[in-house]
């Protein structure tokens, strides 16, 4: 949790955010492809009519879209970090309070995100010029992306001294 009263946050730039988004896209696609291949193999055993296959394809596309939507909303409304954000050491926060987003605001941010891409990604290039490194969808959804210290893996408890395990 970022303390709003502490030192001013450092806002994440275009390169870091692009890399984090690429990592998230890779995760989303790998999972979607895996599930799609498994489902396609299972359906290949059945001789279904063409109309049914068309409907199933539409359903699969909707499920893939829902999966992508859920992925971002879930992580942004959690601690503000998708796996890609976590790897790159950034987090999405409310621009005013610097607290994690609510699910509604996270969904709004995701819905507004294509707006940044539509005018030849000009909405994303706003990151380079905005004082708080905000893209168009950040401005509209009132969010910011800030750097956070990297989260280290917890070492095995068996190696720690009993004093370290005791609650402070």
């Amino acid at each position: 949790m970022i303390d709003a009263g502490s030192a001013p946050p450092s806002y994440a730039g275009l390169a870091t955010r692009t890399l984090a988004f690429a990592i998230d896209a890779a995760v989303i696609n790998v999972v979607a492809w895996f599930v799609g291949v498994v489902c396609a193999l299972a359906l290949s055993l059945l001789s279904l009519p063409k109309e049914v296959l068309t409907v199933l394809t539409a359903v699969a596309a909707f499920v893939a879209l829902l999966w992508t939507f859920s992925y971002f909303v879930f992580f942004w409304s959690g601690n503000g970090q998708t796996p890609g954000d976590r790897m790159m050491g950034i987090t999405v926060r409310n621009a005013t309070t610097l607290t994690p987003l609510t699910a509604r605001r996270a969904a709004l941010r995701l819905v507004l995100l294509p707006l940044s891409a539509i005018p030849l990604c000009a909405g994303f290039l706003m990151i380079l010029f905005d004082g708080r490194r905000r893209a168009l969808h950040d401005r509209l959804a009132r969010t910011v992306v800030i750097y956070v210290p990297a989260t280290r893996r917890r070492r095995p408890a068996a190696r720690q001294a009993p004093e370290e395990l005791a609650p402070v």
Partner: protein
Amino acid sequence: MFTTRIPGSGAWQLARRVERGTRRRVIDRGARATLAGIDLVLASPYAEEAVQRVIDSALAERAVARALSGQLVEVVGADLVRYRVVERMFEGPALERIVEQALESPGAARMLTRVVESSVVEDATTRTVEDIIDRLRQSPALWALVDEVAQSPAVLDAIAQQSAGLADQVGDELRERSRHADDRLEHAAWRLFHRRSAGQLPT
């Protein structure tokens, strides 16, 4: 008490004493003379030659063969076991002293060096090690031990820590480089449009 004394008994006893003394002296001198003769024979230059001829003779060979083919070996072996000769020899301090002296001597060191450096020892060592490795490879106990060690918490902990350390290091490097790239991109855009970058603005 009345005692009678036989006439001439004193003379008889005296004669016996004289006879015994004379016999003892004769035997003693004879034995001394015999020993002196043996010493003389052994010290002579011909004694060794004589012994060598006896040893080299067919008679000696036949005698030894006859003794070995007879019950002598069995009897000696049985006596060695019966009187625990070997055990006593190993248990006694004498053998230990002999071995110690032998090992401390420079000759033993030279001999050992020669033995160790010889190709025979090298070949034997190589063969032994290869044999041991082959046996270990075929031993299920070794693989069970390897599995046990590989699955031990200490080894798993060390591997996990090393993997986590490497991942952390890669992650740190990636984050640092991406942040530099952020700043560079921003500075480039700022130069392009003559604006101040976000890093220079008060937040």
